[in-house]
């Protein structure tokens, strides 16, 4: 029982990262019907920005938490810019082209970032600095570290903030309008180019947060770290219903739990397989995903 609860915690902390990355996939899909395959690589860039920023910032602010907050904020801004540049240079010029063209361009952008990353950052794994010294929190027989808790609560807080932004703000409303019908939104006087750029910026910032939160917990980063995480987050988004933000969170958590349970109780050889098995099953039986109904509001 104790071990099961521990696995539950492991699964939720893994799943919350998938959820953060899946949100970016789902938001971009919501407004453009584009699966941005370079999204996993933005997650990697976030971790690397964090790596270089940490070395500059660490110890210069009064507390460790502040260190981490500054690093995370700057890195999120950095990735938001990357997201906007990516949209402006790679996707906007071909927005009217077929969806297949966009998809192929997305794969190209992804390969470009991965290989440029290996060139600039080096292909060997780097050790992410310990921003927050680790302390153990014992809860009964369960072992949780302060880092795990910070990761979990930050992820949760970001998801709540995103939700408030999308459903309570004017810009969020505009974003929802664009996701319903781009042309109609344009006729209503919404600057759709700006909204789309903003969507990319937000999604990328969340991916950056995911990258840093993972690195706080698991301090090894490399230029290809976004490949598998990106794919799994994509599965999570499809599982929850792509285009639906609650779906992305739900899909991320389910996937994280499924993976940990398979590795913990079954055979860890099938750990990666389970994600793709889920993808196949969901595409066969409910292609729109768990929450992906026609009526649900898309972002």
């Amino acid at each position, binding site marked *: 029982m104790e071990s099961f609860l521990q696995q539950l915690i492991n699964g939720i902390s893994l799943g919350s990262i998938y959820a953060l990355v899946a949100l970016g996939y789902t938001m971009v899909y919501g407004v453009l019907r584009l699966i941005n395959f370079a999204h996993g690589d933005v997650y990697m860039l976030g971790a690397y920005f964090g790596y270089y920023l940490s070395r500059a910032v660490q110890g210069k602010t009064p507390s460790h938490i502040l260190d981490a907050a500054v690093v995370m904020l700057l890195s999120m801004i950095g990735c938001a810019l990357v997201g906007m540049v990516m949209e402006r240079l790679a996707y906007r010029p071909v927005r009217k082209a077929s969806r297949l063209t966009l998809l192929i361009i997305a794969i190209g952008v992804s390969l470009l970032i991965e290989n440029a990353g290996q060139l600039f950052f080096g292909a060997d794994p780097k050790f992410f600095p310990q921003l927050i010294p680790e302390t153990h929190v014992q809860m009964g027989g369960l072992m949780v570290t302060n880092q*795990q808790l910070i990761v979990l609560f930050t992820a949760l807080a970001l998801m709540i903030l995103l939700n408030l932004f999308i459903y309570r703000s004017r810009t969020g409303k505009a974003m929802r309008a664009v996701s319903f019908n781009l042309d109609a939104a344009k006729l209503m006087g919404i600057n759709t180019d700006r909204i789309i750029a903003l969507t990319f910026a937000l999604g990328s910032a969340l991916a950056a947060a995911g990258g840093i939160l993972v690195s706080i917990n698991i301090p090894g980063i490399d230029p290809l770290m976004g490949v598998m995480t990106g794919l799994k987050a994509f599965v999570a988004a499809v599982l929850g219903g792509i285009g639906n933000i609650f779906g992305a969170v739900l899909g991320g958590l389910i996937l994280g739990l499924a993976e940990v349970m398979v590795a913990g109780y079954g055979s860890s050889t099938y750990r990666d397989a389970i994600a793709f098995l889920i993808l196949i099953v969901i595409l066969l039986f409910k292609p729109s995903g768990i929450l992906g109904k026609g009526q649900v509001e898309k972002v």
Partner: protein
Amino acid sequence: MFLSNMKSLRTGIIPVLAMVLLAGLSACNKKDAGSADNEILIGHYGSLTGATATFGQSAQKGIEMAVDAINASGGVLGKKLKVLVEDDQGNPIEAQTAVTKLINKDRVVAVLGEIASSNSLAAAPVAQQNRIPMISPGSTNPKVTAVGDYIFRVCFIDPFQGLVMAKFATNTLKLKNVAVLRDIKSDYSVGLANFFVENFTKMGGTIVTDISYSQGDKDFTAQLTAIKAKNPDGIFVPGYYTEVGLLARQARKLGIKVTLLGGDGWDSSKLWEIGGDALNGCYYSNHYSVDDPSPILQKFVADYKAKYKGTSDSIPDAMAALGYDAALILADAMKRANSTRPDSVRDALAQTKGFMGVTGNTTLDENRNAVKPAVVLEVVVDAKGNGKNVFKETVSP
């Protein structure tokens, strides 16, 4: 009509002839560069980048040092040795490509590499088919040299390494219940885990659980939680340093305090950079220890430190020492064969007996493997994250 045809024929034929001539000339040139020059070309393929980057980098440093020393003392058969390096990124497919290029394009007479067994296993068939001798400095999986009679290694093999750690766990650490966590993607890890399990159970120990991860994994909490529930008094993790470092950290986070044990795949200065003080009091088997007082070894360590002062790894790890020995043994075989013909070099290599290198006395057996003692090292990391290996014991075959 006829004239114009002739003309077009001539204009057509002359460039073609010129091209054929040029191609022929350049082919001749290339051949000359490979053989008649004052150089003997040997190849080294290794992981200069990627998750096992320090293996290839260290081996390359060792090989470089050996080649410099050989050339400084007159070279081999009156010629200088020249090493061409190819990076395989620690990837078996790239390793195969690298060796194909070294043999077919660069026309090397012998290849050195790899450390990771999966990469050696992927590349060895290429060397074997082309009948070019290959010496692996540090691949310990028995299958590597079984590929064919052109494949050699200068280190011990995993059946022995598994025995060493099983003995150490049983006799020195008095462990009874051990969990095994192997890297399912690595031939080295799977092989070594099997040999450890076999020997440890034979000595009366119990394997409480035997589970796996995949190279490249970052999150090991699920496996570690499952291991924790079995309450072992030690965990055998025969993986490579990047995963072992991350895994050690996560084990301590989950409150697992028992000793971790491993093999020579741990040997890298990156191990403690990644794992930090989570690795304190953990042990692994290795090919040599820098603390060994033997004069030949201490001279090597001093020379290495002087040559690579200021680089990130100025203390030679086992891969550097094995790379050094592999290059020296190859040069020695060429001298004994009095030729650089691959088949003569192969025959001379197979006769290697009692070669005194920095990793000890190397004699190649009928399976082209070296029979050598192993050492057990303890990892000690201070509060600042500076680590070192402390010599515990030597086990002879």
